[in-house]
């Protein structure tokens, strides 16, 4: 991997597959909470829908209009948060942001290992918010806020 970050490292097959994977895309018929994340500078927009089982997230889906990193992050979110408590999901989002900002991705647990695809993003500082937008929207949905932004 080069000093400044190779384009091919950023757009790994894993990231691109996630961005395209339709498994978690689309607005569900019923949900318990939703929020919209907007990046006002670039126009990226992510809607997150969650169904809850008490404090636990049962399912998460997204409708993302955005770049590949933004879509991959939303898909990974939807893959990773089911079964977690709201606090755990929030912590996971914080971790995704840290990994994208600092490149630290040496965790061994499986789910955190999945997040390490964003480690390379720290070499592309303007793209960190592409990772965090979906997670900000999830936080907003869980706290009853309807809209949030990447700013």
């Amino acid at each position, binding site marked *: 991997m080069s000093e*400044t970050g190779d*384009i091919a490292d950023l*757009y790994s097959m894993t990231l691109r597959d996630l961005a395209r994977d339709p498994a978690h895309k689309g607005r569900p018929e019923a949900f318990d909470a939703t929020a919209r994340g907007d990046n006002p500078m670039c126009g990226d927009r992510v809607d997150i829908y969650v169904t809850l089982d008490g404090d636990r997230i049962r399912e998460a889906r997204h409708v993302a209009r955005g770049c590949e990193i933004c879509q991959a992050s939303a898909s990974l979110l939807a893959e990773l948060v089911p079964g977690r408590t709201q606090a755990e999901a929030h912590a996971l989002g914080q971790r995704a942001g840290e990994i994208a900002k600092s490149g630290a991705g040496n965790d061994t647990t499986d789910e955190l290992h999945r997040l390490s695809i964003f480690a390379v993003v720290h070499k592309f500082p303007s793209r960190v918010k592409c990772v965090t937008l979906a997670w900000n929207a999830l936080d907003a949905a869980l706290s009853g806020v309807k809209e949030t932004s990447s700013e």
Partner: protein
Amino acid sequence: MDTIISPLFDVTRIRQDFPILSTKVHGKPLTFLDSGASAQKPRAVIEAMTRSMETAYANVHRGAYHLSEAATESYEAARIATQRFLGATEPEEIVFTSNSTAAINFVAHSYGRGVLQPGQFVLTSEMEHHANMVPWQMLRDANIGIGLRYVRVTERGELDLEDLAAKLADGKVGLVALTHMSNVLGTVTPAAQIARMAHEAGAKVLFDGSQAAVHRHVDVTAIDADFYVFTAHKLYGPTGIGVLYGKRKLLDAMPPFLGGGDMIESVTLERTTYAAAPARFEAGTPPIIEAVGLHAAIDYVTNIGMGAIEAHERALVDHAMAVLPGVEGLTLLGGAQDRGGVFAFALDGVHPHDLSTFLDRHGIAVRAGRHCAEPLHTRFGVEGGTTRASFGLYTTPEEIDLLAAKLTEARRFFA
């Protein structure tokens, strides 16, 4: 394709005036195609500002000592240079602000609240930069009875002049505020014709010349503009200084916006009388060093010649129009007859953000997003944004060719 460029205009030599153009980005030569956001600076500007700080710096309009007098003289010389650059009648018609946005906000506050009457409208358009839209929305929302209208933009990305006429017809528009060149579509608007239409309908007219003043010779007297704004940093000058031109009799009738030092005639605890324009509108310590930089930038482009710059950029536009549509999957936004070197486009299957990162790794700087013109992107059905390449006087046809080649490569990469 062969591009004929004026022999008087030696772009290779001009590029040597800009130190940053010889730097490398990610190991690649810099291809800077984001001058529409902010232009790079020639050595003449950098050195003039340094010289001012090293030899002639003090606060202006205050001290009766050599350095303050020297600084005042260079600050006021910048005003005269700006007056000549715009073809204004007197230097007093030039107000220094911090940028174009500040200049428009100033007009919205001072002229909007101080001169426009309840029941009157401001008329702007769908293709404005947010800087020439949001201040008017704020004025409309201030509950002082001033309304807001928008001129439509045609499918080709030109101002719909019939719609302009229709929206002026009832005589209720007090101020027309339009761009002189779109920062997204590159469309140059027919300023003189617009001013004539506005005046016939009893309205004053403001042009946002942030883009136009960089690419064309602008003569506010010939256009008969009432207000004209531009910013130094897009004209190869520094950030932190912008220009508001206003006709003398309009400025004289306008109340101050910011209160403070340097804008007063006399102050007692009970009341203050204000200085005449332009001092009345320049409260506080002004951008002194930046004015020197603006002056140097004006001298720089004037020495090359705005006509020569315009001819060079026309050739670049022709070249881009010949090359870019040939890129598979590329859709240009707008196709105005009269356009400058700004091209916003969508590349099928590639998000603007991903494209911009891809190009950056090849040393190419472009802008991705909605370029502070969200309603225009909605108008053209590209809510998610576009990628924009914008040219400066140092741009070469080879750089456009490189862009086109890398766009094709990007499409393969993201396929």
